[in-house]
């Protein structure tokens, strides 16, 4: 493999130099094989596809490389996100966000009773969390938070809500902060939460 500086990579890829593009493809392919090792859905065809998608994403984003790492590390980082986003999309493509949030039953029943005091504390906390979620969060915050804790991937929620991943993160971050404030306003502090949930 050719030893190239970051500046070499940027210049050659900016010119779409054939050998540099081929080497980028090889770097991404090798990196993705390692990153996705052991995942049944990541077969050779999948890795070929996401390698190609990664090459295009890197070539289209050269100006966003900050220069604080090796170029190839940045390129593999970009490709890894492409690959994992695609894996998650394939798993969730047929799941409706609205149905997941509004209609789906809770995944698991309530935990069986243990001793009365801790069960009571837990039930009271669960009730208060539900009350704060219903009363203090916006519809969008509630939708995003519930989908997230039902396991839907960030990229899928973001796409379906018309948001970037950063904007979605801010939405759920604001929701968590509102929930925290709501619990504190109800006189529930962190120690009580940890005790109620045996954390």
């Amino acid at each position, binding site marked *: *493999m050719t030893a190239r500086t970051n500046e070499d990579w940027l210049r050659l890829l900016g010119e779409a130099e054939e050998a540099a593009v081929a080497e980028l493809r090889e*770097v991404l392919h*090798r*990196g*993705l094989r*390692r*990153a996705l*090792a052991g995942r049944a859905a990541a077969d050779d065809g999948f890795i070929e596809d996401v390698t190609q998608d990664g090459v295009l994403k890197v070539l289209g984003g050269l100006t*966003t490389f*900050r220069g*604080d*790492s*090796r170029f*190839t*590390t*940045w390129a*593999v*980082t*970009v490709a*890894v*996100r492409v690959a*994992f986003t695609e894996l998650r999309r394939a798993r969730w493509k047929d799941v409706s966000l609205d149905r997941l949030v509004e*209609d789906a*039953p*809770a*995944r*698991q029943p*309530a*935990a069986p009773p243990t001793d009365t005091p801790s069960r009571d504390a*837990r039930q009271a*906390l*669960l009730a208060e*969390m*539900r009350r704060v*979620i*219903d009363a203090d969060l916006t519809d969008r915050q*509630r939708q995003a938070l*519930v989908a997230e*804790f*039902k396991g839907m*991937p*960030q*990229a899928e929620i973001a796409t379906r809500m018309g948001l*970037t*991943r*950063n*904007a*979605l*993160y801010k939405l759920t*971050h604001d929701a*968590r*902060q509102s*929930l*925290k404030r709501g*619990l504190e306003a109800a006189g529930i502090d*962190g120690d009580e*939460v*940890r005790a109620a*949930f045996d*954390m």
Partner: protein
Amino acid sequence: MSLSPDELKELARYVLLTRPDEIGCDDWLGYAPSYAELVAAHQPVPEPLQKAAEHLDMCPECAEEFRGLLAALKEDGAGS
């Protein structure tokens, strides 16, 4: 609103970890390459990159990608 008790417990864990100055997933991606190189080389992580480490505690998906990235960087994966 249909979160189960176990899902609410997980949410409570995240609420307890919530900080006012967290970074988002796209911001994390900007920090990830330099952070990964330091972690892979067992080097100390300077203060500005601590936010990248904190984000991984809050975001299972970025944490999954980070594990993949570290695997990719092993041997000569992205070292040229």
